[in-house]
């Protein structure tokens, strides 16, 4: 008799959508359970869109958006957000760049003012540019160059898997390219990509929809209308022969390996894509998952393991082309080929024999918890809904995800596993240069 499955609950966050005359799309999702709000502005430009010779520019530009704007001096943005009791940040992804605040609810109008002001135009000065190039270089040093496994695998695997500049290049950027960036480059980048028609504003939390709508029209209504640029075609053919690359990490004490397989288009073929999201969890989520049982517990060929969709681990915020990734850290002297071989065996076994009783249902229940937990944070809802609006025109998908994940069938997961063949794989191996 099959195990009884936990009922997958859903959220019912209400959603209002509209578009201003200048093309700015707006998503409002009120929830009065705590006196806080999330404000997110997402621009449809990311690492894939930066020009050749300007690696790292999308991220550098994100920093410049905090350096003052039409009515705000340098430092003013930070002070106004934090002086209202809020927190802020921004982040650059493959397909989008986000700017956001979490604030007590009484700061709604202030946050809208701040975001509208920089949407009209940041203060792009030589001094601020040079300062932020220095800051970004320190960011790269602390996150990549001065630590073991820096950029593994999110920066080191794409150039193995992809051939074209947009998909393959280092999104943090080379120091040479960063230092070559000019104010004119920044002004062009802003004009082209930071258009009202290329942006989504989302506000979540303790808001009154009518009041928020009025305030949004007041502050964003006169942002000059500029259309969204045409999005280039980033597609690449799939691999038909396995690609492998190995590099020495001078600081890493132990070997590591990551493999990636292309997956269906997350936007155009969501139904085909979703089983891969579930498969990654079946393989790697916790002590009862397939690969942890096999590689960590039985073979002891791996000491740490992860599986996820998309190079930045944001399965519902990425466009095609993207991948399912598996990464493993190995014990001293560990054999990468053996690990990849065992992964292939486990994928074959899953494709051939299917799942055990209850294996899929328990994985789906756990995924529901993770999804719900992320949406409990007011900012999590604003950010996710903004990107879902931008990439799919469907912010309400956030409410549906636990259920949709729960409806993925065993047949779909088996079929997904069957496509993860070695000849479709790109893999990157870290050779430990820092072994003692």
């Amino acid at each position, binding site marked *: 008799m099959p195990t009884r499955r936990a009922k997958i609950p859903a959220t019912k966050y209400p959603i209002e959508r509209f578009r201003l005359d200048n093309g700015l799309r707006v998503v409002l999702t009120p929830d009065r359970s705590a006196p806080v709000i999330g404000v997110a502005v997402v621009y449809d430009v990311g690492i894939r869109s930066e020009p050749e010779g300007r690696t790292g520019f999308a991220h550098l530009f994100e920093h410049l958006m905090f350096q003052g704007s039409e009515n705000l001096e340098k430092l003013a943005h930070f002070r106004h957000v934090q002086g*209202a009791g809020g927190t802020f940040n921004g982040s650059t992804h493959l397909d989008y760049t986000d700017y956001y605040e979490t604030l007590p609810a009484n700061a709604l109008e202030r946050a809208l003012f701040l975001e509208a002001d920089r949407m009209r135009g940041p203060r792009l000065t030589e001094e601020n540019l040079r300062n932020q190039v220095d800051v970004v270089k*320190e960011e790269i040093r602390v996150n990549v*160059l001065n630590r073991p496994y820096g950029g593994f695998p999110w920066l080191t695997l794409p150039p193995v898997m992809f051939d074209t500049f947009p998909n393959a290049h280092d999104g943090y950027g080379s120091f040479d390219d960063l230092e070559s960036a000019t*104010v004119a480059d920044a002004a062009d980048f802003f004009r082209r990509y930071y258009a009202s028609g290329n942006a989504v504003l989302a506000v979540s939390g303790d808001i009154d929809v009518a009041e928020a709508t009025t305030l949004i029209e007041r502050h964003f209504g006169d942002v000059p209308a500029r259309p969204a640029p045409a999005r280039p075609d980033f597609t690449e053919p799939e691999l038909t022969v396995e690609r492998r690359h190995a590099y020495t990490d001078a600081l890493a004490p132990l070997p590591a390996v990551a493999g990636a397989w292309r997956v269906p288009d997350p936007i155009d073929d969501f139904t085909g894509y979703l089983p891969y999201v579930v498969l990654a969890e079946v393989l790697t989520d916790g002590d009862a998952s397939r690969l942890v049982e096999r590689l960590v517990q039985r073979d002891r060929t791996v000491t740490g393991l992860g599986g996820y969709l998309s190079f930045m681990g944001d399965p519902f915020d990425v466009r095609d082309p993207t991948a399912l990734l598996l990464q493993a850290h190995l014990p001293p002297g560990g054999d990468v080929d053996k690990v990849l071989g065992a992964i292939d065996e486990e994928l074959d076994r899953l494709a051939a024999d299917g799942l055990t009783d*209850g294996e899929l249902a328990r994985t789906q229940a756990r995924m529901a918890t993770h999804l719900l937990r992320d949406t409990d944070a007011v900012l999590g809802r604003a950010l996710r809904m903004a990107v879902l609006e931008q990439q799919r025109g469907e912010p309400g998908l956030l409410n549906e995800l636990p259920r949709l994940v729960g409806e993925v069938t065993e047949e779909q997961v088996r079929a997904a596993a069957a496509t993860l063949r070695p000849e479709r794989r790109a893999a990157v191996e870290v050779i430990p240069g820092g072994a003692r």
Partner: protein
Amino acid sequence: MTTTIVPATPRVLPPLGPTRKLKLPKQAERTLPNGLTVIAVRRPAVPLVELRLWMPFGRAHLARGAMLSQTLLSGTATHTATQIAAELQKVGGGLSAGIDPDRLMLSGAGLVTGLGRMLEILADVLTGATYPTEWVDTERDRLVDRIQVAQSQPAHLARTALLKRIYGRHPYAVQTPEPDQVRAVRPPVLRRLHAERVHPAGAVLVLVGDVQPERALDAAELALAGWRGDGQQIDLPPAPPLEPGPLLLVDRPGSVQSSLRIALPAVPRTHPDHAALQLANLLFGGYFSSRWTENIREDKGYTYGPHSTVEHSVAGSVLVASADVATEVTGPALLETTYELGRLATLMPKPDELEQARQYALGTLQLGMSTQAGLASLTSAYAGNGLRLDFLAEHAARLAKATVADVAEVAARYLAPAKAVTVVLGDADRVEGQLSALTPVRREPA
């Protein structure tokens, strides 16, 4: 060159709306006959429940404690580790164990419909963990590898050097065991340590989520009434006061950054100076709009993420300022740091600067309480230090009251650069000269 033309009529920053009063969520508390305190807090936003079990674990053997937390979930009389994980997954749940010199902590979250089941599994682990040999063997090797990886990370190395320098012979001085100590740990030792220390007396279980607090307490009592064992209470000695001295320079040849760590004295949450100290820390380096960040990041570009925090532990509190700076500007970064500390310790802050920090401190209290996970961690951290959520209101009132004079006085007392203990991890050959120009330096190999 400026490409944006500033408008002739500047737009005016809108004022803030009226501040909402801090509202505490509905909660209930019960101490069970076995000595376990259970606190349940209601936040029904999503149909989940967060769980935190704080167990006092001071003075435990370092390697054995680390191995115990690594293997606590590796099997019971009735379930293997895999079965434990699978049973938890069935209700959307998961548990993980962590340890520090104060406590052993089990944390997790799951669908609220599975609360009863999660508690049953928790009870099974607490009363019947078996530490099976094969699992312990595997986990021992994994822990050794993890420690080796940690020891290659500058953040870990800098932290290790700082703790040793601050705490001397106190149990807080060394918080990561050596691989050889871990290799010596065997299952019987773990079973004994579990029997001696994994006890309900003095422990606090926090449940937060879409629950009726009283019913959550009933569920906890039903599941955990059978957890027994009275250990004697083990207290940590008070943390020693900081002893300023030469800057400790730890060599990491080839490092492209220097990890700068500065410890300053601090006080526990309940101390009368605490609210003013928190504000003084914000002014110095505790948030982005601080003097330190605006100086060494936004003006000089020396670093990416400088920050300073008051860290509270059971045996004492300390203020730690951290920045990873480019090797070639290590001396200049220390100079600016000392300048900002000295300026705060000797000159009155401006009223609007304090007001900004105060709003940040009060606002982020609201933000911290606005998720189930945030509430659970806060409630548990408070409870581990003998406080309850209502302390939030008291703390907010103190933050609201602190004057410029209070903050200046506290800054002089705690943030003076003369009281600092400074550790720098970096390429010593390249930075020793720069640093020696500013302060006496004592050099050590990594």
